[in-house]
């Protein structure tokens, strides 16, 4: 509860900074706040938009949380997101469940490369995942310009693929339920199973964990693979739920935003749901700001950055438990 308070205070402070920044450019923070709020949650349409943005943010946020718990920063979520979507697209013929599983598998495999290279050749995963991101981006570029390009050959994009079922009469797709389920499952795994305990012990103090008889490497590997699976699932769901097609700029920075989501969620799977919903609302509200109040939507990105920096200052996420 104290940490939730910390996170809320940090968020308020960041929003205050954001308002001050906007004020410096001659906008009234009060009006901005009203437009932002209405654009994010003010109408059923706005809420649907916010929830749609929440899904990929929640899954990439979970990816970062799970990896971090074993002591690894997964900054390769962007690449895992892409290969997840690619694999899902290719396996779409086998039905949506098969395709989602393929996406998870591909994301896990992509993340595993980095961790295998670390154990085998001592290659820092921070650097290898950046390289793997680039390889994934170019792989996607090749696919949508070559083997997977739409038959008309007009644009560098794929054919339209399957669509996830929608929830009721809304525009929100079933991916939301999958993402919430993933968050619950991650919490259960990390806090209610022996494996989760070992993963957390590994992240807290690898040498102590070794002495306590934990197979450190196996658990780092496991949590990184799970992390990649989450990011891959995010890509697959974004493909089937929102874009329905692959194109070159498919990932759109969700992998990096996941780090901000995870930090605001205090690196806890359940709190990450709240934090993802908040960022989803922020992004959607900022889009409305640009449309109706002519205020650049980059404000949302700025907000994410400010929150992370304020959180570092308050030092609240350093206490990992």
């Amino acid at each position, binding site marked *: 509860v104290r940490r939730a308070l910390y996170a809320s205070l940090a968020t308020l402070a960041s929003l205050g900074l954001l308002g001050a*920044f906007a004020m410096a*450019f001659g906008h009234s923070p009060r009006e901005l706040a009203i437009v932002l709020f209405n654009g994010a949650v003010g109408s059923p349409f706005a809420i649907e938009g916010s929830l749609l943005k929440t899904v990929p943010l929640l899954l990439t946020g979970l990816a970062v949380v799970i990896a971090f718990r074993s002591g690894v*920063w997964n*900054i390769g979520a962007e690449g895992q997101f892409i290969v997840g979507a690619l694999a899902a697209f290719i396996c779409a013929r086998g039905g949506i469940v098969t395709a989602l599983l393929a996406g998870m598998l591909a994301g896990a495999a992509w993340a595993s490369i980095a961790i295998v*290279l670390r154990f*085998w*050749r*001592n*290659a*820092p995963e*921070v*650097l*290898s995942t*950046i*390289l*793997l*991101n*680039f*390889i994934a981006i*170019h*792989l996607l*570029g*090749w696919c949508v*310009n*070559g083997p997977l390009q739409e038959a008309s050959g007009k644009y560098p994009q794929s054919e339209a693929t399957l669509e996830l079922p929608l929830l009721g009469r809304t525009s929100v797709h079933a991916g939301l339920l999958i993402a919430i389920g993933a968050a619950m499952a991650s919490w259960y795994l990390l806090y209610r199973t022996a494996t989760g305990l070992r993963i957390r012990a590994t992240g807290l103090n690898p040498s102590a964990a070794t002495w306590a008889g934990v197979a450190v490497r196996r658990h780092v590997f496991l949590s990184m693979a799970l992390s990649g699976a989450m990011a891959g699932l995010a890509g697959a769901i974004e493909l089937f739920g929102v874009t329905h097609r692959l194109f070159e700029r498919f990932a759109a920075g969700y992998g*990096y*935003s996941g*780090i*901000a989501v995870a*930090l605001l969620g205090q690196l806890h799977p359940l709190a990450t749901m709240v934090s993802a919903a908040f960022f989803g609302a922020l992004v959607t509200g900022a889009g409305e700001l640009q449309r109706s109040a002519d205020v*650049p939507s*980059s*404000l*949302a*990105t*700025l*907000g*994410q*950055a*400010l929150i*992370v*920096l304020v959180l*570092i*200052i308050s030092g609240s996420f350093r206490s990992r438990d």
Partner: protein
Amino acid sequence: VIDSLEIAIVAATPLLLAVQGELFAQRSGLVNLGLEGMMLTSAMTAVVVAQLTGSVAAGFAGGIAGGMLVAAIFGIFAIRMSADQIVTGTAINLLALGATGFIYREMQHNAMFARPVPHLDQDLIVPAAWILFPLALGGLLWNTRFGLGLRACGENPEAARAAGISVSGYRWLGLGIEAILVGLAGAHLSLALSSGFAENMTAGRGFIALSIVIFGRWKLKGAVAGTALFGIAAALQYALQAMNRGVPFHLLLAFPYVVTLLILCGLTGGVRAPEALGKRER
């Protein structure tokens, strides 16, 4: 062929400056993932200052100032507060992307920024970046006490401290050198390669530069060779695209990263990363 080679070299100049900058930061033990944001910020400050003063030289100074500003933020978090370098770097990238995008769009409403952006005609930065800087910085890194101290902070900060070296002082200096070089890189991008700022105009160059630092095995010779190779591969892409021969140029683009990954694993023998790279100072 010579022409296109020259174009490739000129186009890769900001990249090379950024690579050399990041190399210095990493030799001191800092992984600055915020390189992308640093370059983006300095590209914008360079344009703003150049428009306000009407002078290209002032624009370059403005670019360096922008780099310094980002370096100061990174340093306060990563050195002073010993915060996690990866989180800080990621936050700085988001910060720069958001702030420059916001300010750029706001500027469009201001008549003062409708003025033409002064353009660099005599490009002395290119030879400086490819010949002068690598030689001078190589000498600095390998043949001076300063360079020895800097490398010590990157390899074994405890030993360096025991030898009476101020680890944080050296890291600030390494970061400062990076800020100057990356500031020049951003200014060159917006004032010489293009005429003005555009949202997210660095388009991943910072991350490519991070890859080249690895490709070049944390050496200046490697930095120059690696940048040339990446630059030529990028230029080849456009040539192949224009010819439309159906060569899968995207795979060609991915190739340097695969090679870099192999180098990172030490499969091609030799040098590894500085030992204390990215580790938190307590």
